[in-house]
């Protein structure tokens, strides 16, 4: 039986991990993701899971151990944030190239410097090109649901790619929220008792070598399958979401449209900001403004076609980025959306707002300013920083 409980984002993720009951977890503490690791370690200590927990001495070693364990053929999870994720960067693309379905709880936090513990998306966005699926969450419920789905998605033979599910640091990770926790048995049934691995390193009867050196003649052939799997994963994400909806009632997609059907002005956002934005859109709608929002749930694979289709009738669009590419061409979400629209016959005028760096609050008046600016979008610069003192 499922039950409704109050949980923070971290507690919700740790709870999902308990139910997933991975074979190996290797992790290292970092604010705001520490709690996930602590709560899970207690589950291990209390015998609530069968996991071999490797309390490593760094995030680099956490991801390295995850690669070792996953190559050995078992189900593997970890959790981290910010500097910890940065320390993992070297190993993230190796996990993808070896096609290891490691699942990570990633709590979005600004990267140093200056050192800062609060939310933005710069840590996760800098990891966008490493061959990991990236699923963002608007709230704890989504984080919980997505983490469970992530196991199925990552382990699907059409995908076999590592996957990170993110929450926004403190905003979701530390805020109590009412969420529905599924029955343990239902989770097990949904994800399957065990990972079905091919090419196990521990298959002593059929020894293999894993992680070879490629010269010019094979490297390309080992990278393109990652691109293909990423492309194929869209279908799998949707299939898994459909099954999840049928069984448990909550429906997910690659994107979520909020009052977009007839929208003339709209924003694009990821994560917790979407909740705040919905309030603003309702206020605008009450005043007769045809406002809407597109929430990106899955950033990798990038749902370009879906985004273009959903936004093609919008006249003016603001993309909200909680991170910057420092290219003077806007944030990651903006540049990818603008590129997606290049071939489209019908497209909105698009502008970019970079906001909320280092946990700077994004409030209702700020979001109203964004919609206000869309009235004269032609006068807007390509990219502007929202909420920064000059």
């Amino acid at each position, binding site marked *: 039986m499922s039950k409704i409980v109050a949980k923070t984002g971290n507690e919700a993720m740790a709870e999902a991990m308990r139910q997933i009951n991975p074979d190996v977890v290797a992790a290292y503490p970092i604010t705001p993701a520490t709690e996930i690791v602590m709560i899970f370690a207690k589950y291990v200590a209390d015998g609530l899971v069968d996991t071999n927990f490797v309390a490593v001495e760094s995030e680099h070693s956490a991801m390295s151990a995850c690669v070792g364990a996953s190559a050995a053929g078992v189900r593997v999870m970890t959790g981290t944030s910010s500097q910890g994720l940065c320390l993992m960067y070297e190993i993230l693309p190796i996990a993808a*190239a*070896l*096609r*290891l379905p490691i699942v990570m709880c990633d709590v979005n936090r600004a990267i140093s410097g200056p050192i800062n513990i609060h939310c933005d998306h710069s840590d996760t966005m800098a990891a966008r090109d490493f061959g990991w699926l990236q699923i963002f969450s608007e709230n704890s419920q989504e984080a919980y649901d997505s983490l469970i789905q992530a196991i199925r998605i990552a382990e699907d033979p059409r995908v*076999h790619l590592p996957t990170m599910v993110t929450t926004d640091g403190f905003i979701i990770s530390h805020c109590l929220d009412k969420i529905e926790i599924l029955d343990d048995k239902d989770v097990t049934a949904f994800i399957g008792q065990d990972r079905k691995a*091919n*090419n196990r390193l521990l298959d002593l009867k*059929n*020894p*293999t*070598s*894993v*992680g*070879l050196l*490629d010269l010019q*003649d*094979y490297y*390309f*052939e*080992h990278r*393109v*399958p990652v691109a*293909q799997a990423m492309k194929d994963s869209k279908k799998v994400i949707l299939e898994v979401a459909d099954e999840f909806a049928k069984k448990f009632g909550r429906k997910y997609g690659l994107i979520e449209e909020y009052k977009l059907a007839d929208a003339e002005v709209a924003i694009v956002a990821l994560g917790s900001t979407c909740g705040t934005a919905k309030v603003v859109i309702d206020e605008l709608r009450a005043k007769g403004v045809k406002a809407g929002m597109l929430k990106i749930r899955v950033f990798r694979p990038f749902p370009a076609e879906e985004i273009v289709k959903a936004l093609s009738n919008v006249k003016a669009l603001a993309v909200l980025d909680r991170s910057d590419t420092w290219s003077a061409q806007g944030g990651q979400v903006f540049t990818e959306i603008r590129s997606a629209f290049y071939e489209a016959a019908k497209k909105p005028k698009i502008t970019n707002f970079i906001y909320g760096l280092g946990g700077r609050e994004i409030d209702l008046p700020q979001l109203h300013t964004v919609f206000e600016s869309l009235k004269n979008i032609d006068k807007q610069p390509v990219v502007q920083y929202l909420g920064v003192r000059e």
Partner: protein
Amino acid sequence: MSEKPGWKSLPEGDVVKAGTAAEFKTGDWRSERPVWFPERCIHCLFCWISCPDSSIIVKDQKMTGIDYDHCKGCGICAKECPVKPQKALEMKPERGEETCQK
């Protein structure tokens, strides 16, 4: 390049079956080759345990010859051979004859 498999036919991930390097011949790296004199050999297997290229062939716990397909001619085996005064392995210049053969 053309006979090499494309990405669609490679196994998933960066994986191969164990031991495929045996198909790769390094015998033509040699400028000298170890020549074995069975009549002097005491089958101590010092050559076998010392060879970096797994190129001393041992059957039924006895030295039986050299794998010239892979032997790189380093000379360690001959140097380690304890038989005196004439060693059971001697390094000889690699002549024009076929380099990769048993």
